[in-house]
């Protein structure tokens, strides 16, 4: 995973709540067997509208998505995170994320930041009024800054550490291989096995 420390970039204000992962990346894109090449599928249906915010010339090259509440609901498809990253997003701000999407994002180094809806509203107004306004998401200091806005955010210390260091979960877990083996040794015999019976 790529490490995340701090990032500054222009924003895409997405005034929609309940953006489900079917909107982020429609199912027909999920047939690919790679982690890249999903950028053209990002918000595919909405992008057919030339006025959709992502299509506006002033939003080209923006890297921070500011979205409505309950972002990433629905399907567990990690392709949603890959699509956002493939497109160029480094961070997503919302007042509430769906659990699976949030977990997927943090495992891929896409920083999902939870801020109160009032702050999201301010960031929307600010970046709509001035598309060149930059937002800084600072994981070291755990704060988001933009012209006239400075607000802290929470992220559990363990997730933060793994992001800052760009650590791979599997190798961390495998350091505790003895614990796993010890647990396996005492699993009851009635637990099912998938081998054909």
């Amino acid at each position, binding site marked *: 995973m790529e490490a995340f420390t701090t990032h500054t970039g222009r924003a895409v204000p997405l*005034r929609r709540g309940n953006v489900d992962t079917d*909107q982020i990346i429609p*199912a027909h894109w999920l047939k*690919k067997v790679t982690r890249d090449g999903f950028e053209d599928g990002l918000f595919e249906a909405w992008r057919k509208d030339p006025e959709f915010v992502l299509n506006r010339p002033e939003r080209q090259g923006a890297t921070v998505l500011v979205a409505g*509440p*309950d972002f990433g*609901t629905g399907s567990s498809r990690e392709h949603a995170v890959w699509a956002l990253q493939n497109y160029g997003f480094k961070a997503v701000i919302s007042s509430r994320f769906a659990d*699976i999407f949030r977990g997927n994002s943090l495992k891929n180094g896409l920083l999902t930041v939870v801020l109160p809806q009032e702050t999201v509203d301010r960031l929307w107004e600010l970046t709509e009024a001035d598309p060149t306004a930059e937002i800084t998401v600072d994981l070291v200091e755990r704060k988001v800054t933009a012209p006239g806005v400075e607000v802290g955010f929470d992220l559990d210390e363990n997730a933060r550490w793994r992001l800052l260091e760009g650590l791979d979960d599997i190798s961390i877990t495998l350091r505790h291989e003895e614990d796993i083996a010890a647990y396996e040794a005492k699993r009851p015999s*009635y*637990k099912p096995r998938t081998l054909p019976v």
Partner: protein
Amino acid sequence: MGRTLAEKVWDDHVVRRAEGEPDLLYIDLHLLHEVTSPQAFDGLRKSGRRVRRTDLTIATEDHNTPTIDIDKPIADPVSRTQLETLRKNCADFGVRLHPLGDVEQGVVHVVGPQLGLTQPGMTVVCGDSHTSTHGAFGALAFGIGTSQVEHVLATQTLPMAPFKTMAITVDGELPEGVTAKDLILAIIARIGTGGGQGYVIEYRGSAIEKLSMEARMTICNMSIEAGARAGMIAPDETTFAYLKDREHAPKGADWDAAVEYWRTLRTDADAVFDHEVVIDAAELAPFVTWGTNPGQGAPLSASVPDPDSFTDPSEKLAAAKALEYMGLEPGKPLREIAVDTVFVGSCTNGRIEDLRSAAAVLKDRRVADGVRMLVVPGSVRVALQAVEEGLDKVFTEAGAEWRHAGCSMCLGMNPDQLKPGERAASTSNRNFEGRQGKGGRTHLVSPQVAAATAVLGRLASPADLSDATELAGV
């Protein structure tokens, strides 16, 4: 202080607990399918890792598989590649696979329980959000992303952040014609698509205890649509009777030991939930969605709501956008919404009881002219059972299409899709924009409502049918 069911199952799976770290949980069963696993196997290859416990892992093909002409090569080359990739990965890493054409093939969440692999007190994961289905057995079951799929393949564990507990208590009797699907749609409308966020929900109360295992699976299946981490129902005699003698259920002395443990999997009387919701079953009615998320639902007897009736600004905006997408006007009675497609199937409502209840409504009736009805069994085993009972004949004689098992039109990854502007009554779980095909419009319904809707060509419950026949003088 006592513990909840979810806390008991969690505690029994902690491999490692350390201050400031997420608990490392052991995973008893890992289900795989073709869509969310290829990148995970790739990761294993790149790092030279193996699958730690092939004996706790099983794969099936469901999302991409066609539901007609299954003996012919798959037309879509990208779908074909994905299925071939799963076959190669399972062969290379020694994972049991039930491919298209196999008698155990089907939707992954239908296959696990019917094989008896899903049992009380287990941890079950799959790279699919509807893994919550397995919570019906008192298992802690959650959907995971592809990075976590790779993690489980390599370590048979997952680091998991702590959860909160929610009790949804449903007491009383469900009225005639009100099913588990109506109940869960009503629950989601009440608590919202984010209402369960961070929670493991335990469904309890007398109305839940009376439900069959298949109905319980329908309830737990849609926990994710309320944003919950998982949904669970405490195991009881109904659970044990369902499991007894299934292929992978414990046998002999193991069965007795297992049941003894399973009986301990109940929330203690003095346990405290972080949040509680109480619902009176008697007040429920057939429920359908009118919008583009599963929380935008109402009783079938209601009308399309006015976005201005919502006080929350984001709900108001969401309702307005949903009505625009759905092509609906506020105030239109839901019963007057005409459909051109009816879909019966999916991990929510593709099991034998669902097919029986749809067939009971369709028997000696006809699908309305201009309506296409697809019946897609959840698994090959479900299909075989349906054929044995003659249900396939009921469907085809009514004018419905009887298809092969798979996810099909629930998400339209195979050719079973809505065309732009088409409107479906669907027994699946998601009414998101474009979910069943670009520009397609979805109303989520129970199998009974789906069948009645197919007959009348507009949203309807079986109760409407007797009226309709009387009025027509038949």
